[in-house]
């Protein structure tokens, strides 16, 4: 069995072969995704190599339609027998699912891909010899540990690199593929105060090419700064006060706007944005954009998980909800057009995901935002998942720095911040000018009024 020959080593050919075979076997439509990837990672702790990992793997996923019924299979077995099993399994499953009038591939006219080079793939992420990769991790950790005598321990420094190759084909004539690359350097120092209280924080840089990675030294220095400022944190009394979310935290709230506009939740009525298209859902200063077409972007791709071209959408414009985020299925359910936001893994039906998602920058510097606040809470970390997208209820653990008379003062920890997203979005009263993409979701500094801080 493991000795059988593979169909072909050309993955695009393999994908279309599987589509053809599935159609011959009885599928009225079929869709195949093949992913292969390589990864390298190394972790260094206290200057010594702790782990070194290097490997690759691949998988194939098939989705078939038999009339209005759908089913899917996935496998890591690329032998002839494995592929036959993939196809017969999917067709057998499609016999038990329900007829769904909204199921089906997109119309042939909708398929396509961006023709400009998105600059997603750089072989240089693998160009360093192993010794230099280890050195990246070591330099990053060392920069953090040499920053201050209160940092004597560390959860390590790491360097990771990965490349991926995605091939997609369907029975309506779409064939596409793209490669992507990724590298990152990070460290997590541990500081101890005179009271022997320990704090850990973390910083990283991630990019599609080594050339755009921040230097290990600057990442280490930032990780140290973030860790040291947490030492000797205290709790504050329970109260209402303005909250300023640092950019790396504010981006989770922009993610919540995306989730609230996710078509899957909208058609089910499972989001507080249901029925709010064209209505004011956030402060007038708010413009939220999702754009999968940005050259070199962490969230860019030439086509989405169903073979539709990615695009730029304004989700919220001057506080008004302009569009939901849709794939083919949810678009049909809502009698709308897909926004090219389909994502799919190897198995199951496509879901909905973001491209490069961000809140447009404002005019104020972070310092100017703080200066307006007499007492408030500058949040640098959130803990837990306490967000209910059905009701909008929001309650999460938080730590950060207390604001007094416009300045950051002592660290705060072991408190919660709570409110309701519906009101929180409307109560965004200041937006920073510090928008930087460090991943596929980005936000500048953001101030929200009216939330409750629970502490002592």
């Amino acid at each position: 069995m493991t000795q059988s020959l593979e169909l072909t080593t050309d993955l695009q050919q393999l994908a279309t072969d599987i589509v053809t075979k599935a159609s011959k076997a009885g599928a009225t439509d079929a869709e195949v995704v093949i992913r292969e990837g390589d990864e390298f990672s190394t972790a260094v702790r206290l200057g010594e190599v702790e782990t070194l990992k290097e490997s690759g793997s691949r998988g194939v996923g098939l989705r078939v339609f038999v009339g209005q019924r759908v089913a899917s299979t996935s496998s890591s077995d690329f032998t002839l027998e494995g592929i036959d099993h993939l196809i017969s399994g999917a067709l057998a499953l499609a016999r038990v699912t329900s007829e769904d009038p909204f199921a089906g591939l997109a119309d042939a006219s909708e398929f396509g891909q961006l023709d400009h080079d998105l600059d997603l793939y750089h072989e240089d992420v693998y160009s360093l010899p192993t010794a230099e990769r280890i050195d990246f991790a070591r330099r990053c950790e060392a920069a953090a540990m040499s920053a201050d005598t209160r940092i004597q321990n560390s959860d390590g420094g790491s360097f990771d690199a990965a490349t991926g190759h995605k091939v997609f084909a369907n029975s309506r004539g779409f064939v596409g593929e793209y490669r992507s690359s990724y590298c990152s350097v990070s460290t997590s120092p541990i500081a101890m105060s005179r009271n022997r209280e320990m704090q850990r924080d973390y910083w990283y840089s991630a990019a599609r090419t080594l050339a755009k990675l921040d230097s290990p030294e600057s990442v280490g220095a930032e990780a140290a700064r973030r860790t040291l400022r947490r030492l000797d944190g205290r709790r504050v009394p329970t109260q209402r006060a303005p909250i300023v979310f640092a950019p790396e935290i504010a981006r989770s709230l922009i993610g919540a706007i995306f989730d609230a506009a996710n078509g899957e939740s909208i058609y089910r009525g499972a989001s507080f944005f249901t029925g709010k298209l064209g209505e004011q859902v956030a402060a007038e200063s708010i413009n939220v954009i999702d754009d999968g077409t940005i050259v070199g972007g962490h969230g860019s791709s030439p086509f989405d998980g169903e073979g539709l071209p990615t695009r730029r959408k304004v989700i919220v414009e001057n506080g008004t909800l302009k569009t939901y985020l849709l794939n083919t299925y949810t678009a049909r359910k809502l009698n709308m057009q897909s926004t090219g936001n389909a994502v799919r893994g190897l198995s199951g039906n496509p879901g909905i995901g973001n491209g490069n998602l961000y809140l447009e920058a404002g005019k104020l510097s972070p310092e100017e935002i703080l200066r307006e606040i007499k007492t408030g809470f500058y949040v640098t970390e959130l803990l837990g998942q306490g967000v209910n997208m059905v009701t909008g209820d929001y309650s999460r653990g938080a730590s950060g720095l207390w604001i007094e008379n416009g300045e950051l003062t002592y660290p705060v920890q072991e408190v919660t911040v709570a409110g309701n997203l519906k009101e929180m979005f409307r109560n965004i009263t200041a937006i920073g000018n510090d928008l930087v993409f460090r991943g596929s979701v980005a936000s500048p500094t953001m101030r929200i009024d009216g939330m409750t801080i629970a502490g002592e």
Partner: protein
Amino acid sequence: MTSSAASHKRYFFEKFGLSERMLERCLGEALSAGGDYADLYFESVSATSIGIDESLVKSASQGVSAGCGIRVVSGERTGYAYTDNLLAERLLHAARTAALIASGPAKQPVAGFTETRSPNLYPIPAADLDSDLSTKLDLVMRADRAARAYDARIKQVRASYSDELKRILIAASDGTFASDTQPLARLNVFVLANDGQQTTRGTAGGGGRVEISYFLTEKTPEHFANEAARTAILQLGAVAAPAGEMEVVLGPGWPGVLLHEAVGHGLEADFNRKKTSAFAGLIGRQVASSKVTVVDNGTMPSRRGSLNVDDEGSPTQETVLIENGILKGYLSDKLSARLMNMPHTGNGRRESYQQIPMPRMTNTYMLSGDDAPEDILRSVKRGLYAVNFGGGSVDITSGKFVFSASEAYLIEDGKITAPVRDATLIGNGPEALKYVSMVGNDLQLDEGVGTCGKDGQSVPVGVGMPTVKLDRMTVGGTGN
């Protein structure tokens, strides 16, 4: 060797053309540049899932994957490589890649394997997965019907059934040889209720290392559907959760996620070896009230967190973590036990062959005390009674942890009054359990929903607890 162990082994040898000689050769290659230890972890998984939504079966999927992870340990260093192609040449290549961590004269694995003797904590489905397809379909359809029948205000129902069968085989240079076949099944129900004014949600689910018959006789689709619907309807009348420090009573069962976050992670040996845990150096010290005894137990039949052998081929066990408030021990894997010169507890786990094992929990719970649950509630003047949670999270180093209540009530003058909206509770791990003043006589384990994440690896776990009163804890609501 038990007969079932023989069949797990035969599966790998026949399906992938492995032999003991081949395993020895790979281990030899892994130690070709020296190192203290090497192991091979073979894994073959088949999984099925079926989902119903709007009373239509909209999804059905099956997946298979197989691969091998090869590890070489040299001092505190670990080299790792994996392959999803189990041909001899690819295994040997992976072994040589993992060997790059070491640099010295070759070492020899011990001659001959010793099979790990293990119990049979869970059934092994005799038939292939497909044969049960119509039964699985019926489970989600029954859940859909039951949830809709519960109350006219239930407007949306989604239910899913998923199961997997994971076969593993482990061979190590210290002579360890183990194999296992691990079933895992789960039924989940998600509902939305709407009363014309507002929409609320309710979820319920459960399962374990069980056969499908479990869902027909023990925890039925109707059980989970009613539970999800009940929670959603309850939420329609919920008031804002209070904010601030107060007395908190946690109900039995899944609220044991408190233990998982507040103490469990902090007691994993790797964090303590590196002295990055808030619990480092506290063995023998008081970390909880004297009423608190917490164990981790991987040997409970059919539980979601149980394992016949861990992912390093060692038998699992019951480990006392906290006894009468005193910290007793850590959860260890082979590496941390050796480096820390402490007992090896069989807690080495990994998400898949693509990942390096590390110390993880199995089923973590607090033993029953003497108090009647009614007395516990009656003792509270003003507080929160939390009986169900979404999940939690912890910062190991500072010890700060949170867990989010999805079903909770106000307690006023010893009586349960209004249900409250979702709220996060926050505390400090080494301190929180010192405020436990009453422990109920009603230990329950959760229904089989826990998935624990650490360093990007997810593994199934269980938690449990009797009714417990904490004299103070911070509740993150918005009310007064």
